[in-house]
């Protein structure tokens, strides 16, 4: 496949995540955090189910056969969704997005460094630590700019 086209597609997929955060934040304001998250998760379940039925090749291992701890990811997903729905209307989409990325990268680096949960270990490098610092600083500036021009 064309590499540039793929890259554009991936950037668009990232953009879609922000759109999701904004739409859900708006939805959460009117119907509440629980119902707004449920809409996202149930529609997501149905769409993924349809995609599996029509496009997924048969797999050698099923979800029922993997160790149960590998299925606990949803717990984190639900907490994330509810926190975002609550936070976006208050701090704005950009601040919430950057804060999530800071947490994501920090934890990602820990997971990589120690090879937790069956992932390949990738040692922490200076440039990764510097990147983390830049992002944390970016969050500070982003947050300050938001509070200055709060609605």
């Amino acid at each position: 496949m064309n590499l540039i086209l793929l890259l554009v597609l991936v950037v668009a997929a990232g953009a879609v995540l922000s759109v999701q955060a904004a739409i859900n934040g708006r939805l959460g304001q009117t119907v509440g955090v629980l119902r707004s998250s449920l809409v996202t998760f149930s529609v997501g379940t149905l769409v993924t189910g349809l995609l599996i039925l029509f496009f997924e090749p048969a797999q050698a291992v099923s979800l029922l056969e993997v160790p149960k701890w590998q299925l606990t990811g949803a717990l984190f997903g639900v907490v994330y969704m509810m926190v975002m729905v609550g936070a976006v209307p208050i701090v704005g989409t950009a601040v919430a997005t950057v804060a999530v990325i800071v947490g994501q990268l920090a934890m990602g680096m820990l997971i990589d460094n120690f090879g937790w949960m069956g992932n390949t270990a990738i040692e922490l490098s200076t440039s990764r630590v510097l990147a983390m610092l830049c992002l944390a600083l970016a969050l500070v500036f982003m947050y300050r700019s938001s509070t200055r021009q709060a609605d």
Partner: protein
Amino acid sequence: MQTSSLEAATQTPARPKHRLGLLLLPLVILAGMGLSVEAGLLGPLGAQVGHLWATLSIFGVGTAILLLLLLFSGPQKGPALNELPRWQLIGGFLGPMYVVVLTLATPHIGIAMTMIAILSGQVGKSVLIDHFGWFGTARKRVNGERWIALLLIVVALVLIARG
């Protein structure tokens, strides 16, 4: 600068909201950390059972938990879901879309490149949404401090690309 402090002075009623925002920030960072744990679980799981099945486990278990929470938390305030504008309900389409693109792209352009592209799209779009107040969100314009923040993010992405 002067105008912004003037604006701030006229908006004293909004102050408690700011403090709430500051309290929320660590919570959002923690939620982001949880997301990495989720990704850390999903990667190896997807390699075994297929990425769509792994995604289904997230959405399926999540739906079940939320449904239970909702059932036992009593009557909800606000309008019924089918009284809302349709576009507010499409959030759930976007998650699976993201997973599909990710599984298509990662083998071709590598994890690091995929991650950087995702983050750029995410940050870029979120700044645009704030700037124009899209999807009914409050407007937060790009100002000097936001430009500095964006510059720092670009530096961070370059650093990540170098490994």
